[in-house]
């Protein structure tokens, strides 16, 4: 479904971060992207989302070419993005944040469906509250809810465990895997937290110096400490 071929991208000043990325995510599949800091994981997600213009290579989604398209078109093609640091709208209410996940989508009602509050009950309690007053874990849930509210076919998740306490990470993992299973949403997860990778994904790619250098079944990561040592240890 998502197919990235020979993708080269980097900062605006020309510094390259992605040397040549090749990867695929099948429909309904959940894939983890691991690697040390600065290896290009976040840059890759930003390039897929259209926030960075690729220098070379391309991104196709369901056969249509998304390379160089603006973010709002890529979002409308069915890809949702939960960025590192969450980037919720702090001055808006929880409900307004969720509505913003719907307002740009063609052919979708602008009302926040109750189902989303069913998946994230804490947001229902906080719906009229300013998003900036939520705890880190609640903000993360809001960012994910805002992304999945439009029922995307691919969810890009960047370090959802960052700054979130372990019990909430577990709850987030359960919710996201339920969404993925029930709605057939594919997930491309950037994460350092092994538990989350194990809970959410079936396949894991290792990225180093802007290239995908190895892959493994996620389930094997628990036993094979060699892979983790090689690509994650500092």
């Amino acid at each position, binding site marked *: 479904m998502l197919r990235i071929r020979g993708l080269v991208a980097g900062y605006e000043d020309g510094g390259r971060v992605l040397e040549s990325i090749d990867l695929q995510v099948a429909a309904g599949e959940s894939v983890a992207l691991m690697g040390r800091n600065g290896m290009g994981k976040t840059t890759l997600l930003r390039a897929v*989302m*259209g*926030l960075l213009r690729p220098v070379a290579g391309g991104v196709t989604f369901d056969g249509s070419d998304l390379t160089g398209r*603006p*973010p*709002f078109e*890529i*979002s*409308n093609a069915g890809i*949702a*993005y939960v*960025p590192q640091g969450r*980037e919720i*709208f*702090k*001055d*808006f209410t929880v409900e*307004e944040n969720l*509505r*913003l*996940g719907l*307002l*740009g*989508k063609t052919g979708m009602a*602008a009302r926040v469906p109750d189902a989303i509050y069913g998946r994230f009950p804490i947001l229902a309690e906080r719906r009229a509250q300013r998003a900036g007053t939520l705890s880190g874990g609640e903000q993360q849930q809001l960012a994910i809810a*805002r*992304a999945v509210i*439009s029922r995307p076919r691919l969810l890009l998740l960047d370090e959802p465990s960052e700054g979130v306490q372990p019990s909430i990470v577990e709850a987030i993992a359960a919710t996201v895997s339920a969404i993925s299973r029930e709605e057939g949403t594919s997930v491309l997860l950037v994460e350092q937290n092994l538990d989350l990778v194990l809970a959410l994904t079936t396949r894991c790619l290792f990225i180093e110096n802007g290239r995908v250098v190895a892959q493994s079944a996620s389930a094997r990561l628990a036993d094979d400490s060699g892979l983790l040592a090689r690509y994650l240890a500092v």
Partner: protein
Amino acid sequence: MAQALLVALDASNFMLALLLVTLGLVILFGLMNVINMAHGEMFLLGAYAVVLVQRYGGSFWLALALAPLALGVIGLVIEEVVIRHVYHRFIDTILATWGLSISLKQAVIIAFGPTAQQVHNPLPQTVEILGTLYPVYRLFIMAVAVLAAAGTFLLFYQTSLGLVARAVIANRPMAGSLGLNTRRMDRMTFAFGAALAGLAGAVMAPLMSVDPQMGVGFLIPAFLSILVGGTGTLLGTLLGTTLIAGAGTVVSSIWSQITAQIVVFALAIVVIRLFPQGLTGGSQER
């Protein structure tokens, strides 16, 4: 007492017209990070739209309705032809819009000549307010401006469209990633800001000397209002225009126009020294 009332009415008058010009400028700055040096010319073109319509025998009221529409279209064209190509290069936008400002001004001189044009007052009557006589047309200006400004506030804070605009202002990349059409927002905002300034120019035309320099006369106080009020909320714009227009009108009624200018600039300097982000702070999440 009567004198004070007259000054207060005149100050509100100027403040409301200034508010219409400033609103477009501040929303555009928030949304696209563009400082539009040509915004004063939108005001100018609004006034000349009235001159043009009257020259061909149209009534003032027709001109008043047409001016914002025409400026909306002109705004769309400017956004498409100039602004969208440079908006991510901050300094270049100042240069580009300044060039645009000069071109528009010269175009007006070529079309209408450098001298002032007369627009006759459509409501020359006066009305008695608390014992003093006041021109009816000035009250009409205030009514138009209050309606337009209130409409803008409602649009911005009470509608889905306004929510989207505020989201793009708060975090443009994230808004785009949520599927919000940032391009359409840019176009609409630019057209809307130009239309508001055009409306202000048209409604003020009967009171002013309509000449090619009249845009600058509004652009500078508009910038001062933004610096004083801050760019964080439209309430800051309201506060900034009230202070700048209020101080200017009050001082010029007691002393002179020149003293008023000095006081207004001094006031702006003091406020900016004490509140570098303006009285209500800068844009959030930048």
